[in-house]
Structures are given as structure tokens and as C-alpha cells.
């Protein structure tokens, strides 16, 4: 009880002393303020962008193994304009995957993707989009359950028994081809083909996938049943781009293998790796020209997590340095204060203050300073975290930020700890002054 009264009195005394030298106190804790604010804001921005990246990867499904067709290098550099490039994954490959992996893989999603000029049948409007031949499973793998803006996604009935010429379109495609109209039941034609597809569904706006080598935008996609794609459009797609004109024959652009996710994390992890190895071995044997690639989101996740850990260590290091600098500032000013107030220390000692009382007094003065510095630093840091993304959004930049409660607690408690650590020596020095000498001090 006596101790608490003492602490309370000492704190109010410390605050009064600091208030007496407002500018000096502010300058001496500026280091702490900047350090704390930097820790909070850097952590928030770092975590924000990392979370974005991790979300991107998770969206691809951590139990998926994604096999894609890649144009082999010798054909990419081919000079022959009219050559039909024939490469990539085939239906046979897909069939083999299903057979050899049936115990490990719960489902597969074959896809055929090619760029195309899309236009409404009744209009001359034009949009350069993508045609994606796929199956109803697409909605599950790409988590589209809640992304349907109107109508529905593809269903089994669109594939069997007879492929229907229906399509589901992305939000941007819908807005470009049918401005101000309801796209449902409108028809879309693919340039160079004589088939039209009836719109049965429209998707909501989707975030582009930025985790791959190329940014994959989904909002200009037109999804049609894979079987319809094959039987109605043929296997050759023509590419008309600036400076190049060609044709490609690619049976499947991509196959997503969803690995059985039963069992614990490690088991799933090993199973994913195992599937990837089998796929790799199989494709190496059947595709002598390297026209395929394999992506394992799980690997990317682990890599991203390692990057995040490295970033955190770096940040802790920077935080440590800035708070060290702040602490030295505090120590410096406290040593000056002790010298300046030597006589006061002598008076207090003569009137009965123990060494521990003097230590407590100066230690609390330092801690009060760094605590206030910490509070101000947290506030400055938080306002940066809210302000910077806002300002950036005015210039159409996206700055992701994620505040962690523990980063606030950490920054704040480190600030307080700095006060204790760097206030200790000056406080002990004050306490160990000889009272007689101190009283004589001018």
C-alpha cells in the first residue's frame, strides 16, 4: 500500500517534471516515437502484402497440383507463319492421370483455354477475351460458389448427354458486350467460328491472380463446356495478335489434380508431393519435348511463408536498431538531468530518501517518457497505416495493410522496456551520489 502510494506520487512527480521541460522531453522521446511508429506501420504494410500473396496462393488450392501446357522453345521461335503448333497436354495424358492416380487424387479438372475475339451475335461490338473450355468442377476448384452475379454456372447437363452451346461470362465481358442490358439468354459469337453460345450465367468481379509469372485476369473469360469446346469449335485455335498470326493445336491447356486431403497436414503434404512426382515422371516419359509445366501451390505457400519469416526478422532488426537509438537518446537526456538535479537529489537524500527511492524516481521518469513516446508512436503508426492506403487509393494504387494486435502490444512494451533498460544506469548513478557532495553541488 505504501509502495503503491509512493509509485503513484513518483509518477505524478515525473509527469510534472517532464511537463516543466516540454520541448526537451519531446525531443528526447522522438527517437522512441519514430521507432514505434516505424515498427507498427512497416509491420502492417509488410503483413498486408504478405497476406495478399498467401491468399492468392491459397486460392489456387493447397491440395492442388496444376499441370499446364507450355509452348516448347523451338516452336516458339519458329519462323514459319502458317505452321500449326501442336503441343501440350492431351486427353490421353489426362486419362493416364486419372488411372494411375485414382487412389491419391479425388478429382481432376481438365481445361482448354485460348484467346478469342468475342462479339454479340446481333451487334458489331468486339472484345478480346479468353475462351475457357471446362467442366462444372471449375466452380469448386476456383471457389466460384459465391461469385455468381446472375444465372448459374455450368452443370453436368450442359455436358451430357449432348454438349450444349451455353456459356458463363465474366463481369467485364458482360459489361463490354451488353452495356446496360441483361446478358442472360443473349448469344455470343467467337470470331472465326460459326458457332454461337447462349449466356446462362454472369460472374461477379474477381481479383486477378498475381501469383503466377503472368497476371491472370478472369473478368474477360467466357466459360463453355469442355465437350462443347471440342465438338463445336474443333481442336485448332487461331491466334491473331499484332505481328503474329498462327494456329495452335492444344488439346488441354491445363489439368488441375485435386489431391485427397484426408489425414493430417504432413500426410497431405507428402501426398501432394508424391502426386507431383508421379505426374512429372509420367510426362517426362511421354513428352520428350518439354511442353508442360507443373505448379504446386503448396510449395509456393511454403516459400512465401519463408519469405515472410525473413521479412519479419529483418523488421525486428530494424525495430531493434531504431529503438536502440531512441534508448540512447533517453539515456543521454537522463544523465544530463541527473547532473542538473544533483542538488535536488542531495536534498531528497538528506530528508530521508533511500537509494531505492531515488532510483525509482529517475527510472519512472525515463519509463514515463518512453511510455508516452510509445503511445504517441503507436498512434502515429496506426494513422500511417490508415492514411497511406487511403492516399495511395486516390492515385489508384493498392497498398494492402494488416494490423496485428500483437504488433501494437510488442511495439508498446518494447518502448516501455527501453525506458527501464536505458533509464536504469542514470537512475543508479543518481542513487549512488554521496548526499553530502550532492548537497554542495551548485
Amino acid at each position, binding site marked *: 500500500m*505504501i509502495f503503491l502510494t509512493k509509485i503513484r506520487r513518483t509518477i505524478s512527480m515525473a509527469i510534472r517534471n517532464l511537463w*516543466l521541460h516540454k520541448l526537451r522531453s519531446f525531443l528526447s522521446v522522438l527517437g522512441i516515437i519514430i521507432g514505434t511508429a516505424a515498427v507498427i506501420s512497416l509491420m502492417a504494410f509488410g503483413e498486408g502484402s504478405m497476406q495478399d500473396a498467401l491468399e492468392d496462393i491459397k486460392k489456387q488450392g493447397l491440395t492442388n497440383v496444376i499441370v499446364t501446357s507450355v509452348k516448347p522453345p523451338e516452336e516458339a521461335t519458329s519462323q514459319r507463319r502458317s505452321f500449326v503448333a501442336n503441343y501440350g497436354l492431351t486427353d490421353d495424358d489426362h486419362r493416364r492421370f486419372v488411372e494411375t492416380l485414382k487412389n491419391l487424387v479425388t478429382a481432376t479438372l481438365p481445361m482448354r483455354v485460348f484467346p478469342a475475339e468475342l462479339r454479340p451475335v446481333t451487334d458489331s461490338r468486339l472484345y478480346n477475351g479468353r475462351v475457357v473450355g471446362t467442366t462444372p468442377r471449375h466452380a469448386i476448384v476456383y471457389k466460384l460458389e459465391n461469385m455468381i452475379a446472375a444465372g448459374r454456372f455450368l452443370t453436368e447437363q450442359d455436358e451430357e448427354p449432348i454438349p450444349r452451346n451455353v456459356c458463363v461470362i465474366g463481369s467485364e465481358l458482360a459489361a463490354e458486350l451488353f452495356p446496360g442490358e441483361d446478358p442472360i439468354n443473349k448469344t455470343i459469337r467467337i470470331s472465326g467460328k460459326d458457332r454461337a453460345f447462349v449466356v446462362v450465367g454472369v460472374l461477379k468481379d474477381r481479383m486477378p491472380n498475381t501469383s503466377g509469372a503472368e497476371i491472370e485476369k478472369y473478368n474477360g473469360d467466357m466459360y463453355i463446356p469442355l465437350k462443347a469446346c471440342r465438338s463445336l469449335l474443333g481442336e485448332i485455335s487461331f491466334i491473331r495478335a499484332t505481328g503474329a498470326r498462327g494456329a495452335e493445336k492444344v488439346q488441354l491447356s491445363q489439368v488441375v489434380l485435386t489431391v485427397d486431403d484426408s489425414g493430417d497436414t504432413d500426410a497431405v503434404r507428402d501426398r501432394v508431393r508424391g502426386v507431383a512426382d508421379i505426374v512429372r515422371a509420367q510426362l517426362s516419359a511421354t513428352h520428350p519435348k518439354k511442353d508442360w509445366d507443373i505448379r504446386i501451390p503448396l510449395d509456393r505457400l511454403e516459400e512465401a511463408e519463408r519469405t515472410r519469416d525473413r521479412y519479419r526478422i529483418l523488421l525486428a532488426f530494424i525495430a531493434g536498431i531504431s529503438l536502440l537509438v531512441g534508448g540512447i537518446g533517453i539515456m543521454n537526456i537522463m544523465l544530463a538531468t541527473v547532473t542538473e538535479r544533483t542538488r*535536488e537529489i542531495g536534498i*531528497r537524500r*538528506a*530528508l530521508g*530518501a*533511500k537509494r531505492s527511492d531515488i532510483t525509482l524516481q529517475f527510472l519512472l521518469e525515463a519509463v514515463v517518457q518512453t511510455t508516452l513516446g510509445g503511445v504517441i508512436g503507436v498512434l502515429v503508426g496506426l494513422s500511417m497505416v490508415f492514411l497511406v492506403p487511403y492516399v495511395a487509393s486516390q492515385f489508384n494504387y493498392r497498398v494492402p495493410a494488416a494490423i496485428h494486435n500483437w504488433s501494437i502490444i510488442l511495439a508498446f512494451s518494447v518502448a516501455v522496456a527501453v525506458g527501464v533498460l536505458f533509464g536504469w544506469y542514470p537512475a543508479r548513478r543518481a542513487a549512488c551520489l554521496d548526499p553530502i557532495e550532492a548537497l554542495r553541488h551548485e
Partner: protein
Amino acid sequence: MRVIARVENLTKHYFLEGEVVKALRGVTLSFEEGDFVALMGPSGSGKSTLLNLLGCLDRPTSGRYFLGNQDVSTMSDDQLSEIRCRYIGFIFQSYNLIQQYTVVENIEVPLLYQGRVDASTRRRCIRLAEMVGLGERLNHRPTQLSGGQQQRVAIARALVNDPHVILADEPTGNLDSKTSDEIMELLCTLNEAGKTIIMVTHENDIAAWAKRVVRMRDGKVESDVRTAPLGISGSSLASVTP
């Protein structure tokens, strides 16, 4: 009369730049309750050293010091702080008030270190301030007060813990003669009320207020005489006894 403080064969040696300075060379004195003692002597005679030892600000090299019934000559630093806090009141030449505190808060400081600060002790501080004539200036800071007023605050502060003994180190050294007389009158009043006062001075007319004059030279007691004190009413030089 009861003996309130007693030193036996007290010595104090300092080490100054490799040389031993013998500030006290065996001092034996006893002080009775209610006494008013003037410690006199030229500079270097050891009177300040003796006062520091009596005030428990320092420990003797050898010899014993009893304050009340306690032997304080071998106590630890913390114990000495405790003794200063409870049993000793200090009055300094340069007042030694804490600049950032008000009058009342300055008076309160010794109680702060006893850990007893509450509304009733605050009232006691205010009463003491009124007693020394500063009832109107409770919330003034030392810089807003004259030297005499500051010394009154210091006296009130020396009384707040109801000490066994009040130690005054040249209490009028920084004051003009009129203010000095006022301060000495105040000390006399306190002495008459039963307070024991030990005062260091080198001025005869200040020493004349005391009941007993101890003269020191070269770290020893040179003379120790009881005198007829001036009393509160007579403050003229004519009545000074040699």
C-alpha cells in the same frame, strides 16, 4: 534532562588526493533534550563534518554515535535514510527547497519518504506553513519567495516529522540581519517549545541566541560553555555575552 544524542570519541578521516585528512580527531559530546547548541569554529575545524555525522549523512571512521537509544554509527545506508527520515530535521544555509514543488509540497517531502502522505498529513503541513507565517502562500514556488520566507519553509519542513533533533547549518548565512533575527526568533520559539537544536555558525551574534556554545579547532572540542541565551525579546547586540 534526558540525553538525546551522544557521540563518543568520534573520528572522521577523508582521503583527498592520496592524503589522509583528519577532519575529526576524537570528539565526545552529549546533547540533552531541549538544548540549543551553537557549534562554532574557524573553517576546517571540523564543525561541518560533525554536523554531517550528527545528521546521519555520513558514517564515522571510528567512535560511536547514539541517537536516542540507537547506535547509528554502524548502520547501513538504508537504515541511515530511515533515521534521517524519522528523527532528524535539517535546515540549510541555502534553504535547499525543491524548486518545482510548492510550499506545502516542500514541507511534505520527509513524510513522502516515510510513506505517510494523506489528507491528514496535508493538513499538518498547512498548519506548519501557517505557524511559520506562510499561510497565505501555500501554493507558491520557492522562486516566488524571499530568502527569509524560503528559510521559514525549510524550518516547517524540518518540523514535519517531529524530529528528535533539528540540525541547522548556518541558517542565517544568506540572510540580512533583520531577517536573521526573525529566523532566530522562530528557532528560539521552537526551542522553548521543547525542540532540540544544534546549529553551526561562525557569527557570534547568532551563537548568542543559543544556550550552549561548543567551539571546535583542528577536529577537537576546544571549549564547551553554557551561556545565558538572548531570549526572544532581546535581539540587541548590547546583551551579547562574550
